């Protein structure tokens, strides 16, 4: 039984030139949302499998790199151009040398990927459906069908998606959806950043097809909709070095805890701690399990109260007494 299966339709090859050494230094890694989630889950001690497509020369390299990291790969191998990027960070700033979307997936590739996910999910505790960077790689409807079929198989499904893909996944039904307030704003689900608005948007997402919804808000307590309950999860604010990847760290820590049978609240608290810690370092999807557990002790979870005062006097309480009509 694998702890976590990740559907990563098209893992990337990432090539980065860094300036730490005179003359420069070349870093070659596998990347993409699903890969970053997988890497973080490995750091947290989970067993991880990826179902994805691996295309052409870059795909071969990516497959090997994943294997070296202890990630079990169930590949759909094909010829053609795989997704990749080449960045130059020698000046300290990131310059994009090339960003290649790669070839879209054919019907046949999709069918193979689909079958692989359903098959491998039977031997996993929990599944993450992740999205490739590029919009055109696979149709959104795949997410709806996968979510629905995985739920029918009884496997918990977690998603960190946005836009039409998220809508599709919700239509199929997921166990937990993670979104950011920035994504909600872009989708015009919220206008400002008040807790009430975010809670309302979260409830709409829940109603659209998620058992629970977690909404991250940069520098603010995150909102958790868990059935009827709306909660605020606060974590001490850390000095920001690099905010990239905090959402992935959060999601990985949540999934890791759920795979270990912890309660949703405990998992979210750990995720909040992981996300907060991630901003203190460079390197997407890195983490320190010990530090996460220590910081978790300072995470607080509270119910989001009504607009009415949460404090009443006994007189006010008595005044609220009313006889119900039959």
């Amino acid at each position: 039984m694998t702890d976590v299966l990740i559907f990563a339709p098209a893992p990337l090859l990432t090539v980065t030139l860094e300036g730490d050494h005179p003359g420069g230094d070349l870093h070659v890694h596998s990347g993409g949302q699903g890969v970053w989630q997988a890497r973080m889950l490995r750091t947290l001690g989970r067993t991880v499998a990826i179902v994805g497509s691996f295309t052409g020369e870059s795909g071969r390299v990516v497959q090997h790199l994943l294997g070296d990291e202890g990630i079990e790969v169930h590949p759909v191998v094909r010829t053609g151009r795989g997704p990749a990027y080449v960045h130059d960070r020698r000046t300290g700033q990131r310059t994009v040398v090339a960003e290649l979307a790669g070839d879209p997936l054919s019907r046949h590739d999709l069918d193979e990927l689909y079958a692989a996910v359903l098959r491998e999910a039977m031997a996993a505790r929990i599944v993450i459906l992740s999205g490739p960077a590029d919009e055109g790689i696979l149709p959104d409807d795949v997410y709806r069908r996968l979510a629905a079929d995985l739920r029918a198989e009884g496997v918990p499904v977690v998603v960190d998606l946005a836009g039409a893909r998220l809508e599709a996944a919700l239509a199929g039904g997921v166990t937990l959806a993670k979104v950011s307030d920035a994504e909600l704003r872009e989708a015009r689900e919220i206008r400002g950043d008040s807790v009430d608005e975010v809670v309302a948007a979260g409830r709409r997402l829940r109603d659209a097809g998620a058992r629970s919804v977690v909404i991250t808000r940069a520098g603010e307590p995150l909102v958790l909709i868990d059935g009827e309950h709306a909660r605020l999860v606060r974590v001490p604010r850390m000095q920001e070095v690099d905010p990239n990847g905090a959402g992935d760290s959060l999601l990985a820590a949540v999934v890791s805890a759920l795979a270990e049978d912890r309660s949703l609240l405990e998992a979210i608290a750990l995720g909040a701690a992981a996300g907060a810690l991630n901003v203190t370092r460079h390197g997407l999807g890195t983490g320190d399990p010990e530090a996460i557990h220590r910081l978790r002790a300072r995470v607080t979870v509270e119910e989001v109260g009504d607009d009415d005062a949460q404090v009443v006097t006994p007189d006010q309480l008595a005044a609220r007494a009313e006889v119900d009509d039959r």
Partner: protein
Amino acid sequence: MSTVLITNDDGIDSPGLHALAAVAIDEGLEVVVAAPASEASGSSASIIGADHDGHVHMSRREIAGLDVPCYAVRAAPALIALIAAHGAFGDVPDAVLSGINRGANIGHAVLHSGTVGAALTGGSSGGRGLAVSLDVGMHPVAHEWDAAAALARGILRPLLAAVPGTVLNLNVPNRADAAGLRPEPATLAPFGIVQTTAAEAGEGGVRLTVADLEGEHDERSDASLLAAGRATLTAITAVGETALPDGLSRS
């Protein structure tokens, strides 16, 4: 080695509970954590809990940093304390440590407090009790659980050395330096502050704080001292007997 039960009414996921358990462990006590699976604020010493089949259901939990048995129990805190006193979790605890509650429990209003109810139950069953509450106020920026727990740690040994039946109610201001405070002996305010649950809807309701600090003139009351930024300590008694009124007292 003394055994203590850690419970609360904010529920098993409460960081206040975890902080209290951690200091009890650090103090070298034998610790069992058993707390409501969901919030039970305002349950007083109610022993609501058994399911339709008449059994009290609980599940084992792993709580990060607490290497002791932990149980999420579908019951109010006082029931948890009661069954603990009758061996439900192994050795009968020498003391019930209840908290750290999110919100003060002060004044005579603690009659309605689940946190205090569990502590009182500990005292009624041949053990002792300590209720610990953090005065978070309306919109806390941070929750200083660890500081409050460190303060509570200093009371554990004296509590265990006290006679069975001793029940203490400790309230701590929400300050990062609370560990350095000396808890001051306090009387109970006329009403005070207590937490309750409004609108029980399915899995549990919304938390409501009921407070009345009007007519509070005694400087030595828990309400006055807490408002002045002090930690307060009161030895409280549970249900007891007193003299019958004249006219009813002839035997």
